[in-house]
């Protein structure tokens, strides 16, 4: 499969379309609704500690979830895999041309995750409503889903040059609240087998020290005889290209 650098070969594909914007707007709606419900319930009950704690838990879990998803698509499947094929292809292309993500417009970047979030949050929220869940549950869902949806933006900021990132974002990256350029940069070295988490990156230390992903890869290998991509060096046509060299070549 010959990789296509969309930034050079098809730059319009980096722009947001109205369909992208609609998906992202719906994604925000599906995230803000549980947050609003949580705020109302918290105000009613007068207790904010539990919902805040639950929100924090949601943020922490989102980081872990981002790592697991990232590990799975980086290592298994391909462009023809059902449901995830386009994501897998996009992640592979991202390894080759990591800077392209900074050229994507906002909705263009986030719409696949927005779609996933909508289809996950709606049934969960329906269930929570039936159970008459409290502020904490809604806060957890809202923050977790929100961080997952925005993770692609956090990811893009981690690729952006320091001077181009808004100051508040830079401060959050420095504080470890959002994944930093340095932490994520460590992932972009062959064989791309560490630092998979892209919300805050807080889980990366533990996951890598305890070789959690390596253990999962070994189990999958012994059970299903499938090797993850990170066990081999990337094929030559998929190796990372420097931004300047690529742009110079395109001129």
């Amino acid at each position, binding site marked *: 499969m010959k990789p296509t650098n969309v930034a050079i070969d098809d730059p319009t594909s980096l722009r947001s379309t109205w369909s992208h914007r609609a998906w992202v707007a719906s994604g925000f709606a599906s995230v803000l609704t549980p947050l609003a419900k949580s705020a109302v319930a918290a105000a009613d009950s007068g207790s904010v500690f539990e919902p805040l704690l639950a929100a924090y838990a949601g943020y922490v879990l989102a980081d872990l979830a981002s790592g697991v998803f990232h590990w799975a698509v980086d290592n298994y499947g391909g462009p023809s895999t059902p449901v995830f094929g386009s994501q897998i292809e996009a992640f592979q292309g991202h390894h080759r041309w990591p800077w392209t993500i900074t050229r994507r417009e906002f909705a263009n970047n986030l719409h696949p995750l927005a779609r996933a979030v909508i289809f996950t949050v709606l049934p969960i929220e329906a269930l929570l409503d039936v159970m008459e869940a409290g502020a904490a549950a809604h806060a957890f869902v809202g923050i977790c889903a929100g961080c997952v949806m925005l993770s692609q933006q956090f990811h893009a900021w981690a690729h952006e040059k320091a001077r181009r990132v808004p100051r508040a974002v830079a401060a959050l990256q420095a504080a470890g609240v959002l994944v930093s350029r340095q932490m994520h940069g460590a992932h972009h070295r062959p064989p791309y*087998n560490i630092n998979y988490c892209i919300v805050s990156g807080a889980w990366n230390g533990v996951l890598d020290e305890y070789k959690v992903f*390596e253990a999962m*890869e070994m*189990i999958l*290998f*012994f059970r299903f005889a499938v090797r993850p991509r990170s*066990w081999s060096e990337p094929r030559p046509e998929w190796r990372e290209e420097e931004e300047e060299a690529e742009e110079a070549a395109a001129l």
Partner: protein
Amino acid sequence: MACTSLPKHPLTLLRAPINKSSPPSPPAFPSLSNASHSQFFGIKLSASSLPNPSHSPKRSMLVFAKVSEGNVPPSFTLKDQDGKNVSLSKFKGKPVVLYFYPADETPGCTKQACAFRDSYEKFKKAGAEVVGISGDDPSSHKAFAKKYRLPFTLLSDDGNKVRKQWGVPSDLFGTLPGRQTYVIDKNGVVRLVYNNQFQPEKHVDETLKLLQTL
């Protein structure tokens, strides 16, 4: 065999080797605090109690044995990467570092093999031989050894029979073949059993440390 379904729990008794190459002296006991005192020759299955190390181990009868420190392990003959038959008894007279690993061309095993390769001179200096064992076939071993320039023997444990016989425990609830290394002295007695799945390079340090004391 039931060996692999009870990983890591120390057993109370050992089996004396019944093959010709074993020494006639009584086998040493495994260094387990709950070991029972009776001596058995051959494997004996007991219907009266099941092994349950957390309760009264002195009541448990021998069900199966694994190779531990102080034992003379059962001999075997396996094919090496060139398809030649190699017996454990071939190495009598010099120390052997026998390392069981999950599979060729997996990250941990590659790190381990390369670590043994890079320290191979130190092993030779100690007069020891290094031998790797996994369930892969000879052609897989040959390719693996060639790719990483491994100077030592790799043996094919077809069907993981030797692994089971020696009682190498599995990891992660039986899903992963364990990574366990035995240092056998020149008299054929096991002097160290070291297990570490996720820090493969440590096997080199630990075995070298032990070899210095032999």
